[in-house]
C-alpha cells in the first residue's frame, strides 16, 4: 500500500469525475503512477478504466478532478498536449489508417515536417521506425499497407507508434486482447524492458492472470472509482483479485461434463486453404472443440472455409456424413453452421442499428411471413432472448454501439445461435470482454453444448481454451499437430510446445 506521492511519482490523479449523459463513468477516481513501475489497472468493462486512461491521454476531458505530472498540476487540453507531456497511449480499439503503410501509420500526425505541404523526410522516418521496431523485436515490411496485417501485427504497430514518442508514461489499454500467448510474452518482455528504463507503465486489463505476469502494483476499479491499490505479491491470488474486481464472493469453476459419444457433425480432412496446409479435425454434437495456435498458423482460414467465406484448395469437409462445400456464409447457415467472427467492431456488429436488429439479423425468418416482418412477433422473443443472455441494455431500440463490449458480444452470440444451428464456429468470442460477461458466455456455451450443439472454438486465451473445451487441437504451420482430449491446465506446457512447433509436446498425433 503506497498511495502517498513520493519523489518518483510521475502521475497523480485525484478525485476524477466524468459523466457521459446519464452514465457516471468516473465517480472520483484516484491513482498514482511511479517511474519504473508497471501498474496494472484492473477492472471490468464499464468500470471506468478506459475513461480514466483517455482523460490522462487527453482524449476526454474530466468534469472535475486534478491531474499532476511530476508533481505539477496540469490541465490536459487535448491528445497533442498529452503527447507533449510525455504521455503515450495504445488503444484497445486500433487507431490505424488501413490504407497507409506501416511507416506512414507510425508517423501519422507526427510527420517529420513543420508545415502541411513540406516534403516528408522518409529516410529519417525509416530510421526511427526501424529503431522502434527493433526495440519491439518485431520484423515487418514498413511499406506494407496496414490493411494487409493480422490483428496481432496491427497491435504491435500501435505499440511501436507509441514508443516513437519516447514517452515517460505509457498507457496500454487492453493490448493483449487479440494477441496469442507467444506475442503476449513478447509484448510483456518489451513492457518490462521499458519499465526498467524508467518508463511508468499503466497497463489496463481485465485479465486477472496478467496482474501477476506483468504488474508491480495493481489498482482495482469498480463503478468509476479505484477501490484499492496493492503491491503484487504471491498472497494476492487470482481468486482474491476476482473478489475485489466483482465485489462479491466467487464460486469455484464449474466442472465440465462429457457429451455422449455420437457421429461427428463436422469432419475436416487434410484441408488446405490460405495458411492452413493440411489440417484434420472433427466436432461432434454437444462438443466444444478448441483449435489453438499462434497467429499465422492457419486456424482462421480453416474456420472461414467451414463457414463458407474461404474456398479450400484441397481436402474435404464432411457435414453430417456428406461432402460439403459451402459457397457463402448464407449457404453454411442454411446447412446449420453459425458463425461468430473475430473483430467485433468491423465484422460483427451493425454499429448504428438497434440491439434488436443486431440480435435477429440471422434469424429473421422466425418473425417473417412472406418476407414481411411482424413487429408484434419480433419484440417479445427479442426481449426474452436478451434477458436470457443477460445483456444489460436500456432499450432494445438503442444502437448496439451504446452497449459495452461484453454486452455487444452477448448480442452477437445470440445472433449466432439464433437460427439454432447445429454447429457454431467462434473466433475469439471473449476478446475484449470483461470477466463477468466472460463467465456468463462460458455458462451459455456450456448450456448450449449440453443441449447438443457443437462448438468450434478459436480463442487466443490458452487458459480459457483448456478449461472450457472437451477437446483441443493444436495447430502449427498450417497443420493440426496434436490433439488433447479432456484437457486441463496441466496440459498448458505441452500445448504451448505443440503450437510453437517443438517436438517435445504432442501427446498424440492427429
Amino acid at each position, binding site marked *: 500500500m503506497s498511495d502517498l506521492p513520493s519523489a518518483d511519482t510521475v502521475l497523480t490523479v485525484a478525485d476524477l*469525475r466524468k459523466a457521459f449523459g446519464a452514465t457516471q463513468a468516473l465517480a472520483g477516481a484516484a491513482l498514482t503512477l511511479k517511474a519504473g513501475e508497471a501498474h496494472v489497472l484492473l477492472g471490468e468493462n464499464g468500470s471506468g478504466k478506459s475513461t480514466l486512461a483517455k482523460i490522462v491521454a487527453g482524449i476526454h476531458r474530466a468534469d472535475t478532478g486534478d491531474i499532476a505530472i511530476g508533481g505539477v498540476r496540469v490541465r490536459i487540453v487535448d491528445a497533442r498536449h498529452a503527447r507533449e507531456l510525455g504521455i503515450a497511449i495504445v488503444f484497445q480499439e486500433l487507431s490505424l489508417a488501413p490504407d497507409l503503410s506501416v511507416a506512414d501509420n507510425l508517423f501519422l500526425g507526427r510527420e517529420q515536417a513543420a508545415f502541411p505541404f513540406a516534403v516528408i523526410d522518409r529516410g529519417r522516418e525509416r530510421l526511427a521506425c526501424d529503431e522502434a521496431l527493433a526495440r519491439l523485436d518485431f520484423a515487418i515490411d514498413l511499406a506494407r499497407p496496414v490493411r494487409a496485417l493480422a490483428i496481432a501485427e496491427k497491435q504491435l504497430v500501435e505499440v511501436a507508434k507509441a514508443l516513437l514518442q519516447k514517452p515517460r508514461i505509457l498507457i496500454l489499454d487492453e493490448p493483449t486482447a487479440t494477441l496469442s500467448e507467444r506475442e503476449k510474452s513478447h509484448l510483456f518482455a518489451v513492457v518490462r524492458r521499458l519499465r526498467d528504463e524508467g518508463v511508468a507503465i499503466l497497463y489496463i486489463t481485465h485479465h486477472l492472470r496478467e496482474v501477476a505476469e506483468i504488474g508491480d502494483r495493481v489498482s482495482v476499479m469498480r463503478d468509476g472509482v479505484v477501490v484499492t491499490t496493492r503491491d503484487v505479491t504471491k498472497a494476492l491470488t487470482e481468486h482474491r483479485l476476482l473478489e475485489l474486481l466483482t465485489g462479491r464472493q466467487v464460486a469455484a469453476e464449474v466442472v465440465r461434463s462429457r457429451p455422449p459419444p455420437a457421429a461427428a457433425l463436422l469432419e475436416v480432412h487434410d484441408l488446405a486453404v490460405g495458411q492452413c496446409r493440411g489440417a484434420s479435425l472433427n466436432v461432434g454434437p454437444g462438443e466444444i472443440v478448441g483449435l489453438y495456435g499462434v497467429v499465422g498458423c492457419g486456424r482462421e482460414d480453416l474456420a472461414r472455409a467451414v463457414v463458407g467465406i474461404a474456398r479450400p484448395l484441397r481436402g474435404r469437409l464432411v457435414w453430417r456424413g456428406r461432402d460439403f462445400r459451402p459457397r457463402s456464409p448464407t449457404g453454411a447457415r442454411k446447412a446449420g453452421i453459425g458463425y461468430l467472427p473475430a473483430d467485433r467492431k*468491423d*465484422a460483427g*456488429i*451493425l454499429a448504428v442499428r438497434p440491439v434488436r436488429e443486431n440480435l435477429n*439479423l440471422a434469424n429473421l425468418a422466425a418473425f*417473417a411471413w412472406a*418476407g414481411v416482418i411482424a413487429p408484434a412477433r419480433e419484440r417479445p422473443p427479442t426481449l426474452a432472448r436478451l434477458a436470457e443472455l443477460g445483456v444489460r441494455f436500456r432499450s432494445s431500440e438503442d444502437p448496439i454501439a451504446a452497449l459495452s463490449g461484453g454486452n455487444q458480444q452477448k448480442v452477437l452470440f445470440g445472433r449466432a445461435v439464433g437460427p439454432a444451428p447445429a454447429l457454431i464456429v467462434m473466433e475469439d468470442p471473449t476478446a475484449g470482454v470483461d470477466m463477468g460477461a466472460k463467465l456468463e458466455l462460458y455458462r451459455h456455451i456450456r448450456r448450449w453444448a449440453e443441449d447438443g450443439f457443437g462448438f468450434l472454438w478459436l480463442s487466443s486465451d490458452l487458459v480459457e481454451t483448456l478449461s472450457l473445451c472437451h477437446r483441443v487441437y493444436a495447430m502449427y504451420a498450417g497443420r493440426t499437430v496434436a490433439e488433447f482430449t479432456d484437457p486441463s491446465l496441466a496440459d498448458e506446457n505441452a500445448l504451448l510446445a505443440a503450437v510453437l512447433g517443438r517436438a517435445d509436446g504432442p501427446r498424440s498425433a492427429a
Partner: protein
Amino acid sequence: MSAPTSPPPPHARALWNRLTAGQLGLPLFIVAVAVVTGLVEPRFWSIDNLLNLSRQVAPLMILVAGQVFAVIAGGLDLSIAAVLALSSVVGILALKEVGMIGGITVMLATGLGIGLVNGLIIVRFKVSPLIVTLGMLSIARGLSLLVTGGLPLYDVPGPMVDRLGYGAVLGVPVPALAALVALLFGAFLLHYTVFGRYVYAIGSSSTAAHNSGVDVGRTTVLVYVLCGGMAGLAGVVLTSWVSAAQPLAAQGLELQSLAAVVVGGVALTGGSGTMLQAFYGALILGMLSNVLNMAGVSSFLQTLLIGVVIVAAVILDQLRRAHR
C-alpha cells in the same frame, strides 16, 4: 446518477435537440415556409397551385423513393434521371407497336432492366456504385439521344395525358397519387420486410451482414432494380404530365434526389434513415422551387439558393450528430 458538478441540461437545449433530431424540425420548417409564402403570396395556397405543386414534385418524389434504398445500403444511384428519360423515349417508341398499356409496361421494364444491369455489375465485379451508375448515366442518356435523334417525341396518346398526367382520383392528381404509392410501397419494404432489414444491415456493415448469412449480393442487386423501377415509374408520370418524351428530360434530377435524401437527414454513410425523412427532403426541395418561382426569383438565383439549402442542411445534420 448525474454528476454533482455538471448542471442539468436546460429545457431550451432539450427542445433544440428535439427540433434538430429530425422528428419535428423538418415538418415545422416545411409548415413555416408554407405559411410565410402564403402571407407574402396568397396564390400559394390556391387549389390550382397546390395541385400543380403536387404534380411538379411527383417525379422527384418517385426517384427519391428508390434513391433512399441505395443510400441506406451504403451506395447511391446516379443513373436514375437518365434512366427516366430512356424509359420515357423507349416506351413512347414502343407504344406505336404495342399500344398504351404495352408502352407503359415497356417504360417500367426498361427501368427495372437497367437497374438489374447496374446491380449485377456492382455485385459481380465488386465496383463502386458511384462509378457504375455514373457510367450508366452516360449510357442511358446516350441511348435516348441515339434512338430519338436528339429530338423530343410528342406522340404521347391523349388518354395517357388526360388520365395519368392530368387525371385525378377523388380530387388527387394521378401523378401525386403515383408518388404517394411509390413512397408508401418503399416505406413498407424498408421498414416492414426482411429485405428492408438487410438493406440497413448492409449499409451499416456489409462484412458483418455477410458473416451473419445475409445474401449481400442478392439484396444489393434488388436495391438497384428497385431504383431502376422507380425511375421507370417516374418516366411514365413525367411523360404523361408534359405530353412528351424528351431524351434530355430530368437532367440533374439524380443529384436533386440525392440532395433531397441528405436534406431529409439520411446519412450518406448508410445504415440509417427513414422513408419519411426522404419524403420531407424531397418536399422541401420541390416546394422551394415552386415558392421561388411564384416569388419571381430568376432561375439562376434559384439554382444558387437550392445549393445553399443543401449545404445548410448537411451542416445542420452534422451539428445534430455532434449533439447526441
